[in-house]
């Protein structure tokens, strides 16, 4: 919350002016995080913790075991996606169209809804807020933002599809199903924004079945954007 308090109006204006510059330096990223936090406050969020030092310790974040572990795994991915779109909406890329702004805002809200759903469903078993690392993303560049969005959405779809069979409770399985098709809708839209008719692209196999990934495969990819060390060795493996 200190971040939010530091984010004064005039500072925001300066930050928005900075958006015209090409490179998003590390310093600016940290300041953007403050801005994103302020915007998140408008919609009430307080879980973008890019600068939260008490979260980046050496002890790591243990997802746990069984269905709880899989739900925490989904919660981690939703945290990542929500943090990303909060940033995208707070610092829109150069040349963003009104329709794209609407889509990005919608997706942000969907991902926040997913994140908060898992947080509440997990209750005391929920992992803490993760520290994200978006230093490799240029938020002022459409190509960088949409390319990252595509990667996150495709990753999310493959993650849910690949973890479904590990769930023991059919209610959780149904919930994963309710979310994964929305992630697939996001993925298709983002892909269309990048290249028309790429809604399937390289995400399907020869049978036009969406590819799936195991939790270790997904976490290896996601770790680029998550500073917190995730401990997943208790997850079910089937």
């Amino acid at each position, binding site marked *: 919350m200190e971040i939010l308090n530091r984010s004064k109006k005039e500072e925001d204006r300066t930050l928005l002016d900075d958006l015209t510059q090409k490179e998003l330096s590390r310093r600016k990223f940290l300041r953007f995080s403050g801005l994103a936090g302020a915007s998140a406050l408008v919609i009430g969020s307080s879980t973008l913790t890019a600068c939260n030092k008490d979260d980046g310790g050496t002890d790591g974040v243990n997802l746990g075991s069984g269905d709880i572990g899989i739900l925490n795994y989904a919660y981690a991915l939703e945290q990542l996606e929500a943090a990303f779109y909060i940033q995208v909406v707070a610092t829109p890329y150069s040349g963003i169209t009104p329709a794209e702004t609407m889509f990005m805002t919608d997706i942000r809200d969907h991902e926040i809804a997913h994140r908060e759903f898992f947080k509440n469903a997990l209750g005391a078993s929920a992992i803490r807020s993760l520290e994200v690392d978006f230093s490799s993303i240029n938020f002022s560049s459409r190509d960088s933002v949409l390319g990252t969005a595509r990667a996150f959405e495709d990753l999310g779809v493959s993650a849910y599809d690949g973890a479904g*069979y590990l769930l023991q409770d059919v209610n959780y399985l149904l*919930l994963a199903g309710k979310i994964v*098709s929305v992630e697939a809708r996001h993925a*298709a839209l983002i892909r*269309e924004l990048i290249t028309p008719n790429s809604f399937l692209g390289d995400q399907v196999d020869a049978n036009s*079945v*969406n590819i799936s990934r195991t939790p270790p495969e997904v976490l290896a990819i996601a770790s680029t954007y998550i500073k917190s060390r995730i401990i997943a060795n208790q997850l079910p493996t089937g």
Partner: protein
Amino acid sequence: MKIVNILDEIEKVDPEIYDRLSPRRRAMQQFFRVGSKVAIAAVPFGLGSMFNKAYGQSVPAGVIAVLQYALTLEHFEYRFYATGSSAAGLVPAADKAAIDMIRDSELKHVNFLRTVISAAGATPVAEKPAYDFTAMGTFPTVLTSYSTFLAVAQVLEDTGVRAYKGRAGELKNQKVYLTAALGIHAVEARHAAKIRYMRRLSGQAPTIKPWITGGNDTGIAAANGNYGGATPESTVVQAGITITGINGLAISATAASEAFDEPLTTQEVLDLVRPFGVS
């Protein structure tokens, strides 16, 4: 993938493995050695089925039933796009590639499910000799008006997504079958998003989004049932947790409904597709 080597290894501890598999051994060996991607992708199914048969087990009837249900719907979806694509003057040139892409995707689902069901030892359900794409006159211009065709396509894709979702629980813990079904489910959602986006860009439904907003957002009252049901698409409470305004955040009911797709029961789906001659 050295499937045949695996059989040879098993033979060392079970000399009768080939007898157990016979008379399918030759067919299976050829099956595994076929270079086509379809056959390779189907190997896990074929292998599982082979061992199930060899050791006296079988794929649960409930799993077969879900696969047959999926194939029934995929037959219909494929024929819908195939018919639309070849209907003179229906699909504009600019959209032809996308429609054919979805058509081909549905055909791959049909062929895949047929392969899987056969490998599981059952007879794949046949395509109906004819469908009524007007749904008994509800959509009389479906094959002459492109906007009607796209609207029906959207309804069918969204319904397909809901249909798969409704039966996922019956495949619980079935690594191969559930993962495949979820993979098709996600592709149907990609189709749905694409069709919706095409309707938006063409101006036929300028405000529609790739995701389902509230309930029936198609603009076609006849599709109310496709977005309704026991768990309607407008649902904003998940597992007892209210998503609207969750944890004090400004999540609108609109966003809450969009963020989660909802299932249809088997009976709901069968009733919805009956006018098309599917069930």
